[in-house]
Each structure stands twice: as C-alpha cells, then as structure tokens.
C-alpha cells in the first residue's frame, strides 16, 4: 500500500522559478500564435464576415478565456491592485486616468477600423467613402466608448473593492 502513499516532494526553488519563467514564455508563444492565426483569417475571410467567427472561434476562445482567467486570478489574489499601487507611486499619471485614456483610445481604434472597412467595402466613390467613414466612425464611437469605459472602469473599481475588502478582513 506504500505505492499509493503521497510523499512530500522536495522542490528546488531555483528550478521552480526557471520552470515558471518557461511557462510564462510558453504562454506568450501560444498567445502570439493564436493572434497571428486570427489576423491571417481576418485577411482571408474579411472583418465582419460570419465565416471568420466560425474559423477563428478556437483562437478567440483561447485568447479571451486565457486573458479573463489571468485578470480574475490577479484581481482576487490582490496582485492587480498591488501593481496599481506600485505604478501610481512611480508614474506621473495615475492608473485611473490611464484606464480612461486606454478605453477612449481603444474605442477610437475600433471605430477607425470599422470606418475604414465600411468605406473600402461599400463605397463607390471617394466622397461616398469619406461619408461612410465618418458615419460609421461616429456610430461605432457611440457604441464602443461607453461599453469600454464601463468594462475597463468596472474592472478597475472591482479590483479596488476586492482589495479594500481583503485589507479590512
């Protein structure tokens, strides 16, 4: 019965640290491969096509679920807020402002991509293309800006709340 007995493993901390470093690098490699695959499929099928979603669903799930898992674990372990604390100590711009800037920047980026895609795909002339670009840019901004502000701002506030709660307890 000694075969099934669990013995405590002695682990060398240096080896553990190196293994963790390798796992981290492996994560970046996998994410890069998924990202390249998504961009390639975007190029092949076009943005906004349903075929893209069907073909790239696995890569998108890996990217999104991996990112969400990392974010959730770092929030609930308090690491996210500790990083914010260190960042605010050394940076002129606090993380709260940077979160807003990033949300606005990302919303603009998405809106510009959508605008260019619409102008290139559907316009018959340059002036029509410009008009389509402006329309889609404006509408996309109206949709994505509040969503991204609520999403990133919400994550920031949630992390703060969890951190404050854990400090009190």
């Amino acid at each position, binding site marked *: 019965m000694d075969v099934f007995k669990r013995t405590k493993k*002695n*682990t*060398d*901390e*240096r*080896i553990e640290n190196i293994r963790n470093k390798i796992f981290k690098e492996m994560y970046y490699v996998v994410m890069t491969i998924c990202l390249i695959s998504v961009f390639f499929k975007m190029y092949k099928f076009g943005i906004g096509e349903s075929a893209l979603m069907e073909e790239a669903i696995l890569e998108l799930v890996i990217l999104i679920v991996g990112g969400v898992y990392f974010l959730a674990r770092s929030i609930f372990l308090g690491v996210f807020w500790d990083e914010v604390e260190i960042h605010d100590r050394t940076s002129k711009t606090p993380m709260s402002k940077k979160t807003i800037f990033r949300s606005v920047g990302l919303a603009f980026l998405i809106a510009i991509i959508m605008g260019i895609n619409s102008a290139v795909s559907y316009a018959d002339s340059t002036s029509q293309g410009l008009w389509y670009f402006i329309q889609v840019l404006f509408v996309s901004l109206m949709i994505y800006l509040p969503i991204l502000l609520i999403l990133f701002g919400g994550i920031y506030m949630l992390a703060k709340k969890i951190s404050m709660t854990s400090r009190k307890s």
Partner: protein
Amino acid sequence: MKLKLARVEKDLSQEDLAKIVGVSRQTIGLIESGKYNPSLSLCINICIALSRTLNDLFWDAEIKK
C-alpha cells in the same frame, strides 16, 4: 566565498549540502559563486545545515549604499 569556506570546514561537498538542504547541487554552486540569490528560507536552511548564522554566511560588508 564565506559559504564555500563554511561548507569545506564542515567537510561537506556541494552535493552533500544540497541533499541536506533539499536543492540541487547546481543551486548550491550558483549561490557560492554569487550568481543566484536564494530566498530567505533557503538561506536559513543553509545556515542551520552549516551551524552558522545569517550574518556569518550572507552579510556582505562591502555593500555600497
């Protein structure tokens, strides 16, 4: 250097010390050559194994402020 001297005084090889402390021989070698910074718990385990204090083995008098 202090670590190596203390180990030799106790008549222990790197492998012997590694076995006592629970790390690999290479880790002991890297600590002795100053190429790896051990955690506090590993430092304490090494001190216990060599019957020395942290000051004896790990304090660097030449640390520049």
